[in-house]
């Protein structure tokens, strides 16, 4: 008999969350959560930290409608886990760029971004896009989608661990 495999991805509308089964430990020490559950209860473009490793974070983001314009002093990467997301990029003029090159995490661009249009991309499930350091970027999504953002913890990062993680 030959096996036929079905790869099981999750989505906002269809996911099956696992769990921690404690034996002799505190379940909170495993910071167990699910990106679809988080995005299902988040405001659009709320940058919810669901993984942190010192200054580095992974954020689970509900993409819906047009986001504000962001910029960041370092590269970031966006992985689409559900839906479709456009990312529009502008090479930001120095006057609007992050003034501190060591500044970590994304910040909002003040006003409309000024600079050369770099182009745009459209991500579907499993696609990962680069958000280059010093660019301004905007997410656009007609339907709710889910993005995982690889970045550093910044001013816009939201931490609400007790509400997203298994605690008992």
């Amino acid at each position, binding site marked *: 008999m030959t096996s036929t*495999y*079905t*790869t*099981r*991805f*999750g989505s906002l509308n269809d*996911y*099956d969350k*696992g*769990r*921690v*089964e*404690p*034996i*002799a*430990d505190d379940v*909170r*020490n*495993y*910071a*167990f959560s*699910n*990106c679809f*559950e988080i995005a299902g209860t988040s405001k659009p473009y709320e940058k919810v930290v*669901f*993984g*942190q*490793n*010192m200054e*580095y974070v*992974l954020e*689970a983001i509900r993409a819906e409608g047009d986001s504000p314009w962001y910029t960041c002093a*370092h*590269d*970031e*990467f966006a992985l689409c886990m559900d839906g479709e997301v456009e990312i529009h*990029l502008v090479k930001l003029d120095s006057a609007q760029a992050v003034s501190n090159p060591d500044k970590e995490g994304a910040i909002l661009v003040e006003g409309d971004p000024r600079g*050369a*249009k*770099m*182009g*745009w*991309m459209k*991500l*579907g*499930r*499993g*696609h*990962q*896009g*680069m958000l*280059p350091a010093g*660019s301004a970027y905007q997410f656009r999504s007609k339907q709710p989608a889910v993005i995982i953002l*690889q*970045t*550093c913890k910044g001013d816009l990062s939201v931490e609400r*661990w*007790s509400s997203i*993680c298994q*605690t008992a």
Partner: protein
Amino acid sequence: MTNMHGYNDFTLGGFNFRRDEYFAHITWSTLDGRPMSHTMDAGNFLRALMRDVAWGFFYGWVNFDDVIGTVNHYGTVDMYAGSFNGAMKDAGIDRMENFPTDDIRQLFEQMLADWTNAGFDPFAAPQETGSPYGPKHGDNMPAITRARELARRCVGLEGDLPLRTDERGAPVNRAFADVPQDTPEVHPEPGFENEVHAFNLFAFLSRSQVTWNPSFTSVVKNSFMCPTTEEHILPIIHGNDRVEWFFQMCDEIHWNCDHKETGEPLARVIMKAGDMAAMPAYCRHQGFSPKRSMLLVWENGNPDLVDDINSGKAPKVPVDFGA
């Protein structure tokens, strides 16, 4: 020296390694001179040895099983038997020795090359490779000398780690035949072709030829996205020297989490698509993946982090939930 089965025996300090048709045998003497021995299935031993060699002894502990393994001190490496097994440690029958990394690496590479027979790939899922057993017959140098695939910034950028394709010897794995191979729409303006960039990570992973072997696909400073495809059992029990994060991208993996010093069970973690979990720095863990799955291992590669953890500057748990 070649034994009756055609394999060479190896010695590393006070440890001796011998294999026969089915098993690897490890022997050592206790501090008070008692002879001790341990036996592992040859295939399982080679799968663990393969990871230890390929990962440069990795972060922290690489337990081959609940008796033997290595600890990476980033310049030197401990080889141990029983030192992180509560009962053996209490009985005083453990042994640990420290070696310069180059010395233990060279011996492990020689042992891996000599003990791996033709047709057996220690990186492959058990259903996708031949048998490790029998008397010495040939070798499989291409399989055991694969270079780790490490992007410097992002997979697919010009001059960086290339995409996987049929032409590059990376066909879609049988268990991921249903994974879409589409590419993102990318519309760069002239001059920004290498800045406006995206790729299909899931398609990239569907073409992995190995299991339980993370590659780097995107890098933010010392934040490394290290996705990997997993099938059957993680051939080592990884003991953390830092908090490690797992993001399950499809299907599921079941983890056994034990205390890294004693091996006492702490928790089971059942991860399904979309789940995130951390492995605290005091645990060791082993995963079981019933179907080939995609796991994002997310690492902080800061070389100062271990010292920060040992000095108490960095936490051993991932999150402060507050009082």
